[in-house]
């Protein structure tokens, strides 16, 4: 459990990276720089 606690504590500070990644991907899609993403 301490391992999970430490990882999640680090995870909270990863919020900003997650938001940044999402916006970079959104921008790439907006500028048609990556092909359509399929599911």
């Amino acid at each position, binding site marked *: 459990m301490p391992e999970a606690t430490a990882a999640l504590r680090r995870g909270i500070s990863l919020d900003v990276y997650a938001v940044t990644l999402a916006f970079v991907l959104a921008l790439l*899609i907006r500028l048609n720089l990556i092909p359509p993403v399929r599911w």
Partner: protein
Amino acid sequence: MATAIAQPVSSSSTGLLRRILELVPGLLLLAAVGEAGKLIEQSIAGYTKSHHLTFPNIEYVLWAIVIGLIIANTIGVPRLFKPGVLTYEFWLKAGIVLLGSRFLLGDVLHLGGISLLLVVVALTLSIAFMHLLGRTFRLKPKLTSLLAVGSSICGVSAIIAAQPAIDADDEDASYAIAAILALGAISLFTFPLIGHGLHLSDKAYGLWAGLAVDNTAEATAAGALYSDAAQKVAVLAKTTRNALIGFVVLAYAIYWASRGQAHAVGNKAAFLWRKFPKFVLGFLLISLLATLGFFAKPQLTSLANLSRWAFLFTFAGVGLRTNLRELGRQGWRPFAVGAIGEVFIALVTLALVYSADRYLHL
């Protein structure tokens, strides 16, 4: 001199590269488990369709979680894979931000406003009830505080945020996290069954899952197991709940400081900002951009699909990080308090959702 300066830069970039490489095996495992879940769903759907059989569609979400659970609790997740597996929270947050593109800001404000109202009522009742339970089961007061924060706000993240603020022991935090994780796993399987049993609409069920299921990953999965529309609402309601984390933790920090059992809170605005989940702002901003027509329709489809891929990694991680043996070793009392509290919260929020459906027109 030049060598002396170049050395740390070189070693820090090597360190970063090594940390990124350490994530690769776990990320591949997440992708493999998620893909296997998708493959099973598609195979069953294809087989039943070609044989004209009537069989309920079991979403990839459930398969991915079950495969992850089986791996984690039989052979275990080897150390090599752990750093990558633990990134599932990162994918969850990125997925939620991207999901914002599927909401018009007006819907966010309408449903988010209703959620906020219900969250405040549920929060007050559940915190009071958890403290009553904690006293009845003679749990340590700070452990009770952590369980109350975890079950009423947003699970493990809230416990992690509250632990240093109220100067709680690591052991108490571990107990509370174990109980909340175990209960989250149970909610995942029970909520969709109850929702179907009660014939809840997608919106009502999504709101209920978002208000009652503790961890964001489990709330998202519980919504996805019901329907796509329910998942959207569950994420929105859960995000509203997450946004209140700072206020609740601040209240607890002030309470414990007033009793001389935690350090005093200095700048309260800075404290609130530190604890505020920043991905909520990203979610709102993407929703605003989508509302303003920043993205064309095919681009919105791509964003929605990217969000689904991010959630696929998350759901695989939920199963892989749940070690049932470890959870069982944490003792029955925190689990019992958490479980009784969860049932109470589930009932209260269900009543609130029924009322909102009737009087506030979801």
